[in-house]
């Protein structure tokens, strides 16, 4: 049994900013293939502060999972990872797998979409939670089991004293995911990374699981990275948000800034494509024309150019950095972010119904935003 007591926490004085638990800096990930390198993640940077919840959204294939797998050290050997990932000030990139494995499930916990990838079918859930505790703490088996029951109660599993002896297959999908959350909590992690933790679940069950996640955060004080394609889930459970597009962060800020004052046309377009539960009336939806670029041989310039109603020549040539907007914590990767002040998605995108994937923004007449042609 490994002993790692809480002493490690006291070393956090060595961290650059005591407040930052996870710092990702200029992270890039490439996968070599026969056709060239897939640039799955292209220079992602974010900081996660103690207790904070950071949401990451983006279309399928935008690099959300690869970014997180890189942080967790779980990418296949073929992946070329560059940049820096610091947990409590300690560099993780290049760490030997044995040391990485010790961090995972201790300071760094993870929850994936399919709970069965994290659970072992041949052991009871109680045994698996207790194992997680015993792997990092020198306590008796009885104490570990009691703690397991406590944790099951925290994540809202009814009759935890009985459920603790269930095998995973005796539980529903929502319950299994709550067991995974209980395991994630077992060692008071500093950071929980949850990748689409509720995507496979029905909404009423999703609500239970998200509640369990909140309970886990309250009890452990862990900071969380919550990856999802559901903007509603982010709105309710994150403090800050990163929008990913083609392997890059294209907008980053507080959830209020990004939801109410988006400054990157893609974020605005995403919000305008959503059918709304909370709005009556039949306003037409505004799809984003085109589809995301291939991550093989990306052309220079802003990757959103072909789909962007604001695009100008400069967009094809120069990839915009993350420019500060009104609030310095709110940054957007668009050369023309200032033009989006006060603009709504229906000003910028059209309510068309033809096959948008076969079009580019240039196929449509240019939009006529106030103050420009």
């Amino acid at each position: 049994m490994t002993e790692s007591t809480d002493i490690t926490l006291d070393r956090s004085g060595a961290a650059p900013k005591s407040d930052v638990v996870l710092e990702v800096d200029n992270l890039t990930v490439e996968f070599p293939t026969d056709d060239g390198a897939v640039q799955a993640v292209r220079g992602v940077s974010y900081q996660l502060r103690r207790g904070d919840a950071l949401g990451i959204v983006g279309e399928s294939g935008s690099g959300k999972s690869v970014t997180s797998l890189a942080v967790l050290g779980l990418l296949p050997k073929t992946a070329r990872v560059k940049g820096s990932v610091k947990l409590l000030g300690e560099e993780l990139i290049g760490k030997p797998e044995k040391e990485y494995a010790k961090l995972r499930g201790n300071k760094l916990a993870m929850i994936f979409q399919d709970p069965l990838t994290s659970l072992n079918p041949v052991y009871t859930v109680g045994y698996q939670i207790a194992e997680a505790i015993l792997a990092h703490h020198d306590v008796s088996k009885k104490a570990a089991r009691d703690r397991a029951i406590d944790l099951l109660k925290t994540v809202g599993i009814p009759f935890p004293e009985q459920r603790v002896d269930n095998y995973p297959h005796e539980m529903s999908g929502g319950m299994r995911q709550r067991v995974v959350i209980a395991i994630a909590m077992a060692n008071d992690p500093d950071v929980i990374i949850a990748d689409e933790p509720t995507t496979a679940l029905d909404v009423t069950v999703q609500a239970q699981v998200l509640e369990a996640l909140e309970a886990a955060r309250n009890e452990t004080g862990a900071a969380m990275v919550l990856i999802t394609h559901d903007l509603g889930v982010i709105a309710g459970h994150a403090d800050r948000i990163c929008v990913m597009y083609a392997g890059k962060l294209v907008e980053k800020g507080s959830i209020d800034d990004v939801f109410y004052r988006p400054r990157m046309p893609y974020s605005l377009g995403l919000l305008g494509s959503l059918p709304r539960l909370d709005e009556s009336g039949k306003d037409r939806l505004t799809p984003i024309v085109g589809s995301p670029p291939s991550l093989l041989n990306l052309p220079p310039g802003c990757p959103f150019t072909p789909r962007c109603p604001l695009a100008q020549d400069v967009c094809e040539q120069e990839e915009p950095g993350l420019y500060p907007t009104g609030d310095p914590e709110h940054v957007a990767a668009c050369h023309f972010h200032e033009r989006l002040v006060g603009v709504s998605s229906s000003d910028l995108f059209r309510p068309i119904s033809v096959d948008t994937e076969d079009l580019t923004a240039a196929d449509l007449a240019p939009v006529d935003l106030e103050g420009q042609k």
Partner: protein
Amino acid sequence: MTAPTSLGKPEPEATKAEPVLSVRNLVKHFPVRSRGLVRRKIGDVHAVCDVSFDLNERETLGLVGESGCGKTTTGRVLLNLVKATSGQVMYQGKDLTKMSASDMRPLRRDLQIVFQDPFASLDPRMTINEIVAEPLRIHGQYGSSEKGRGQVRELLRTVGLNPEHGNRYAHEFSGGQRQRIGIARALALRPKVLVLDEPVSALDVSIQAGVINLLEDLQAELGLSYLFISHDLSVIRHIADRVAVMYLGRIVETAPVEQLFRTAAHPYTQALISAIPLPDPQKERTRKRILLTGDVPSPVNPPSGCRFRSRCPKFANELSEGERQKCVNEVPALVDRGEGHRSACHYAEAMKLI
């Protein structure tokens, strides 16, 4: 085509016009068999239980509910793709459930279905032209190759696709494009009714929006009636005129769409609406959630009385022991209890949730 105006979008449920399709007391059981050699029948999955509704002309009826509640089975039984255990589906004065496959044939033209991924069941060696032409050929409407090709091109244009791409194969298209091809195929025989089974559920939202717009346009242009199946209440609110909410094989509430969201009366509908996260941080922060406990019971052995009672917050927290007896012993009828629309709860009470 019929007069497009007055029939438009009836808000109140009481429209005098004949419904296009009338479903009455529809039941579908699937046998559950034991394992082993003999495979005795040991029970039934009560997939669809006493379901009744009307589909009106040029209307979108949203059928919503969680996984396994019987939406797909309802759609398939409706079109007689699966035999009903009992009940009626009336279309143009005929009961579809009693019809043989050959009797159904002429009616198939009028009644079409679009699946979540129409390509899961299709030959990957067929081009898009061939896929869309297939129903025309089967029903002898392809005609000369010139006429047939013309029809196919026109159909591809109708669903917003570039007809030049007709010689490509399905795998060369993205999810949203495939869904459009599935719609083109369903439209080939000029149907009156489309059953759309989760037609946008697999798509990224930026693509989903275009397909939803297309379905709205097609309905307006072609005068179609839709049974729109989805587990996503946001999509349903956007596209449907009326909604039927299903739980464990039964319809528990049905109402015009705005009324359902303003005055949901069944505890399940209320929990469902309140569980859906809104993409609006301020609203999310101040929202009250009705959390359900427990899991959906097995449809092989559904609870007696009200099927929702094992998870019902009202049953658990508000009712007296005496009141609960009614939930345990009596199946609540789907009737208007004073909320202006029908719900299947003995103690229905309208509630505004968003």
